[in-house]
C-alpha cells in the first residue's frame, strides 16, 4: 500500500508499510522539461547526498530519520516515518511561549549542524517535524553539505530568515529572535562571524 504524503519540488513522498513498520519512501522522479544530463546528475547526487547527510547529522546529535535502504538507479530512499506535525503548520496554532521554545530548539539544532561544519541547505519550517512526544526532527537533506565555510553557514541562516519572513510574516520577529538565541546558546562567541555574514548576504542580493 502506498499513500502519497506530499509532492515536493523534487520528489514524491510516500508512506509505505514494510517489515511491519510504517516507512517513508522518497522518490526523486525524472523531469522531462530539464536537460537529461542535468536531471539525472541531480537526482543521483542528491539521493546519495541525502542518505549520507541524514547519517552524518544524526552522528552530530541532530535527530533525523534513519535510512533503511537506497536505490541509486531509481533514486529512491526508504527511511523512518516520523509521526508528527511540520513546524510550519504548528507555528500559528501554539501559544507564544511554545513557539519561542520550539524556535529556540530549532536554532540549537541548526547550530549543532554548523558546529560540525554541516549546513542543511534548505532550513525552512517545512523541514522541521515535531513528533508526538514533542521531540524535534530535521528532514530533507538533499541540499545539505559537509565541510561548510562561514559563507555557507551564513547562507543557511539567511535562508531561515527568508523562510520566516515569507511563511511566518506575522510571527517572524519572535521566531527569528528565538532561533538565533538558540543558535548562539550552542555556538557562543563563534556564532558572531556567521551572524554578521548572514546580514551581509541579505544585503548582497538586494537591488542596488
Amino acid at each position, binding site marked *: 500500500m502506498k499513500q502519497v504524503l506530499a509532492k515536493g*519540488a523534487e520528489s514524491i513522498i510516500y508512506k509505505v508499510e514494510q517489515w511491519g513498520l510504517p516507512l517513508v519512501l522518497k522518490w526523486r522522479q525524472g523531469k522531462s*522539461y*530539464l536537460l537529461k544530463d542535468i536531471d539525472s546528475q541531480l537526482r543521483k547526487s542528491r539521493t546519495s547526498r541525502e542518505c549520507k547527510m541524514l547519517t552524518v547529522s544524526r552522528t552530530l546529535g541532530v535527530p533525523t530519520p534513519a535510512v533503511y535502504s537506497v536505490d541509486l538507479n531509481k533514486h529512491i530512499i526508504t527511511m523512518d516515518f516520523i509521526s508528527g506535525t511540520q513546524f510550519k503548520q504548528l507555528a500559528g496554532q501554539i501559544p507564544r511561549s511554545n513557539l519561542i521554545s520550539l524556535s529556540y530548539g530549532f536554532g540549537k539544532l541548526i547550530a549543532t549542524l554548523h558546529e560540525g561544519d554541516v549546513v542543511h541547505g*534548505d532550513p525552512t519550517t517545512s523541514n522541521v517535524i515535531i513528533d508526538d512526544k514533542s521531540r524535534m526532527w530535521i528532514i530533507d537533506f538533499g541540499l545539505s553539505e559537509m565541510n561548510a565555510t562561514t559563507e555557507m553557514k551564513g547562507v543557511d541562516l539567511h*535562508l531561515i530568515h*527568508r523562510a520566516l519572513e515569507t*511563511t511566518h510574516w506575522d510571527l517572524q520577529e519572535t521566531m527569528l529572535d528565538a532561533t538565533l538565541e538558540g543558535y548562539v546558546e550552542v555556538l557562543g562567541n563563534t556564532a558572531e562571524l556567521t551572524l554578521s555574514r548572514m546580514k551581509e548576504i541579505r544585503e548582497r*542580493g538586494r537591488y*542596488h
Partner: protein
Amino acid sequence: MTLYCLGIEGTAHSFGAGVVTSEGKVLSNEWDMLKPAQGGIHPREASRHHSELGPGIIKEAVKKAGLDFHEINLIAFSQGPGLGPCLRTTATIARTLSLKLETPLVGVNHCVAHIEIGCLESNFNDPVTVYVSGGNTQIIAFAGGRFRTFGETLDIAIGNMLDVLGRELGMGFPSGPIVEEEAKNGRQYHSLPYSVKGMDLSYSGMLTAAKKLHSEGVPIPDICFSVQETSFGMLAEIAERAIAHTKKNELLLTGGVARNNRLTEILSGVAERHDARFHRVSPSLAGDQGAMIAWNGILQYNTGHETKVENSHVLPKWRTDDQDILWR
C-alpha cells in the same frame, strides 16, 4: 467614469510611457532602450537618454492612445527600485506633468507593476511569479498583504549574467536573444556549477566557469546551450520549490528574460507537473514599459493612494515586499 492613466517608466536603461484605462485596456505603450556601444549601462548615460527621449516618447504615447494631454486623469511613475539618476529624471518628468496638468500623481513599485500587468493579461488571481530581467531574478508570491520574495539571486541577476557572458563571447547588447539563438545549435553539454540554496540561487560561479569554457576553445553554441540549460534549470527548481511550498496553482513568467522560449518551455513543464496554470507575459508587456506602471497606478489610486509631490522622492532600493498591497 473611465480613468485614463499615463504611466511613466524609467528605472534602468529603458524609458517608456503607456496609457491604460481603469477597465484595464492598454491604449498605448511606447518605449526606447539605451543600447551602449560597448560595456554595461552607465547610470548617468541612461538618465541622459531618458531626459533626451522621454518627452517625445510621452507625447507619442498620449497621441497613440487617441487622447489629448488634458484627458489624462492620473500620472503614475516608477518610484523605485532602480538606478538613482534614472529614477530622478523619470520622477522629475512625472512631477512636472502632474503639476502642469493638475492631475494626481502615484508612485509605483516597478517590481509589483511587473506582476500586476501579468495578472491583468493572464487573468491570474494569485500566482507564483518568476520575475527575470537584467537587474532582477526573483520568485515572488502574495502572502499576508504583501508580495513576498520567496527566492532570489544571491549575487547577479540572470539577464546581467547573460549580458556579461555575451560581452565575453563578443555579442552585442542585450545578449539574451543572441545567446538563445546560438544555444539552438549547441550539441554538447558541458557541466557547469549548479548552485541552488533553498529557494535562492547563485549565478556567479556558473558565469566564471562558462568564461573558462570559452578560453578553452569550447564552441560558442555549446557554451550558450550549457549556460541556458543550467541557469534555467536552477530557476525552474526554485520556482518549483515556491509552488510546492505555497501550494498556489498559477505560475507567471515576466520580465525581459521572459522572452526566452527555452525558459518558457521549462517553466511550463514545471507548472504542468504541479497542475498549475502557466502564463508567459507577452513581449510588449514583459520588459520595462509604461503600461505596467499605468495599470498599477490605477490599482493604487482606486484604493485611495496618491503620492503628493513633496513625498515623491525616489526609492532606489524599494523592496518588492516593502509595500502594503491594499488592492488585493
